[in-house]
């Protein structure tokens, strides 16, 4: 690993201000933060690809895309929450609840997919608002509030489903389209992910809403005194997160063909946070971008896919994953060359 780091370090840092304008432009576009992720991704792809060319087959590429779609959605939502300076640990169980509800509503309406989906989304919105209200008006710290709703939503999902997978959506054209269909040769799952991500990216980067979210995350006093209604933003962001989590839940239903109260959504919260943090979000807020998160999601997706492809023992996979995370970040830091004192952000 070390010599990788060396290679990076020795290659002239492309973001040095003395560089040519065109390159500067390119970098502003990519974002310095992301360069190191791209490098890591590149290295990883080359290693895996050379080991087993199957990796590059469209079929496999699609697989990676569909595999990361769901955790990717949550990671994107988490990015916004983190930029705001908060955290949402309940996304996983929100998705689980939404999955169950979508399937049950679908069954209850004797097979009306639209209604099933609508019900799930509406519910997601409510879950998000619950989080927001508890935080803003209950004055509960976001982490503990969403740790609480993590348990609560999961419990509700298990209660309504009595802990069993619900209904069967595998025969419904809409759900089939979601899980296996494709537009222009690209699987629907990937479309959903890409579109949602694009929307959030634009919101965060180009609208005043997004800019204010950065401001709140950066210094909420300053934001407040400059006339930003912080509470409304907190509610809004959590509501959006709930909505996206519900979307993820619906995709889970579509893929597994049934409403899954827990299985399929448990542990997604850590994945989402990992991706966001690896993508360059500062957990104290005010810093981060969708682009970085997506790169991180891909990095993790490629790793998982590649290691299975190369038939690496699952236990080693854990070790490898941990190592990759560290290496990827270390590259970033080596490049930014800050001084080595105190807690890194």
């Amino acid at each position: 690993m070390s010599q990788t780091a060396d290679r990076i370090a020795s290659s002239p840092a492309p973001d040095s201000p003395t560089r040519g304008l065109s390159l500067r432009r390119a970098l502003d576009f990519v974002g310095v933060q992301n360069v190191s992720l791209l490098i890591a991704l590149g290295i990883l792809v080359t290693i895996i690809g050379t080991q087993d060319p199957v990796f590059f087959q469209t079929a496999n590429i699609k697989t990676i895309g569909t595999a990361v779609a769901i955790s990717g959605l949550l990671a994107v939502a988490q990015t916004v929450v983190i930029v705001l300076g908060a955290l949402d640990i309940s996304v996983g169980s929100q998705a689980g609840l939404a999955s169950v509800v979508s399937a049950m509503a679908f069954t209850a309406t004797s097979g009306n997919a639209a209604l099933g989906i609508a019900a799930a989304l509406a519910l997601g919105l409510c879950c998000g608002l619950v989080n927001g209200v508890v935080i803003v008006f209950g004055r509960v710290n976001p982490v503990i509030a969403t740790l609480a709703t993590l348990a609560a939503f999961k419990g509700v999902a298990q209660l309504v489903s009595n802990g069993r997978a619900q209904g069967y959506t595998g025969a419904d054209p809409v759900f089939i389209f979601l899980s296996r269909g494709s537009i222009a040769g690209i699987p629907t799952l990937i479309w959903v992910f890409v579109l949602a991500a694009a929307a959030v990216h634009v919101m965060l980067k180009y609208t005043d809403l997004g800019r204010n979210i950065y401001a709140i995350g950066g210094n909420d006093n300053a934001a407040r005194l400059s006339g930003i209604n912080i509470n409304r933003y907190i509610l809004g962001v959590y509501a959006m997160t709930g909505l996206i989590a519900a979307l993820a839940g619906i995709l889970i239903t579509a893929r597994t063909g049934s409403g899954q109260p827990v299985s399929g959504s448990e542990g997604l919260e850590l994945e989402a946070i990992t991706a966001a943090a690896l993508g360059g979000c500062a957990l104290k807020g005010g810093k981060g971008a969708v682009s970085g998160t997506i790169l991180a999601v891909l990095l993790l997706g490629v790793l998982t896919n590649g290691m299975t492809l190369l038939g690496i023992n699952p236990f080693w996979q854990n070790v490898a994953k941990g190592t990759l995370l560290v290496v990827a970040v270390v590259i970033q830091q080596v490049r930014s060359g800050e001084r080595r004192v105190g807690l890194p952000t």
Partner: protein
Amino acid sequence: SSGQEATDNPDVGGQKTGPITIAYLQKQGDQQYFVDEAAGATDAAKELGEVKVSVVNLGLDSNKAISELDAAIARGVDGIAIVAPDQQIGPQVIDKAKQAGIPLVASDDSLKDGSGAEAPFVGFDGPSMGQEVGKKAGELYKQAGWTAADTRIIAAWKQDLTVCTDRVNGAKGAFTEAAGGDVPQIIEVGTDNTPTGAQDKAGAVITANQNVKHWVVWGCNDENVTGVVTALQNSGKKPADIIGVGLGAYLSCKDWKAGQQTGNRAALFIDGREVGASAIRALVESIRSGNPLPAKSVAKTTMVDATNWEQAGLACT
């Protein structure tokens, strides 16, 4: 595409010579039983030669199951064995394999497709495993000559796992038959399927029933049973007053190996290696010959106790 059109491959692609790769997708791949299963599979592959098995741990994640299934299909494996985290995903799994024309066996937990037809199955039959346990517990209870009045039964399992629920229900039924007479009250304890989790949850139940003399314990797996038994013994109950019948035997065996007095009286030894091996053999046979897979090959389980566990071929780490 709407994703619906079925690419009509023949169910099983004719004879295949040359190297074969098989994907073994396992739920809870880090649990001892499934680790053994994976080991059995790879060993079998070795002795068959020219066969490569890639094992994937699905945890308890149905969504990951689908993803990994896609991945396996995408990289063109010749056969798939899967232990689904949730049996409800059967239709999706079977369809995908069909569409790709890859032979698939359901390992350990059976799978049905949309029309309710079962996929080829290798492993143990969940309910009947439970029945074995219940039967043994019933017999021991009868021998002990305890009365329903001074006895309680603890059934411990992760209540949102369908397979677990099936096993436990199986045990209940069989116990009633075997024990004859009236059945002691059954206390259901929801756990996280870990030994410590079972211990902590059982602790509360035990204090709530302190005047109870005798205890019968069963559960979803050895973790639950040994956990509860330990809790009972920690609370001062004598091993003689406990009838714990494990499921898996890989933890119960530890007491026996050490020659300890223990409430873990017996355990149903289900040999993961056995299942893993036969799954691979079945797949390879069918791929080589082109014959369809055997509909159901149920591996044999043996009820073991302190006296006979070694003969049964149970390796205790």
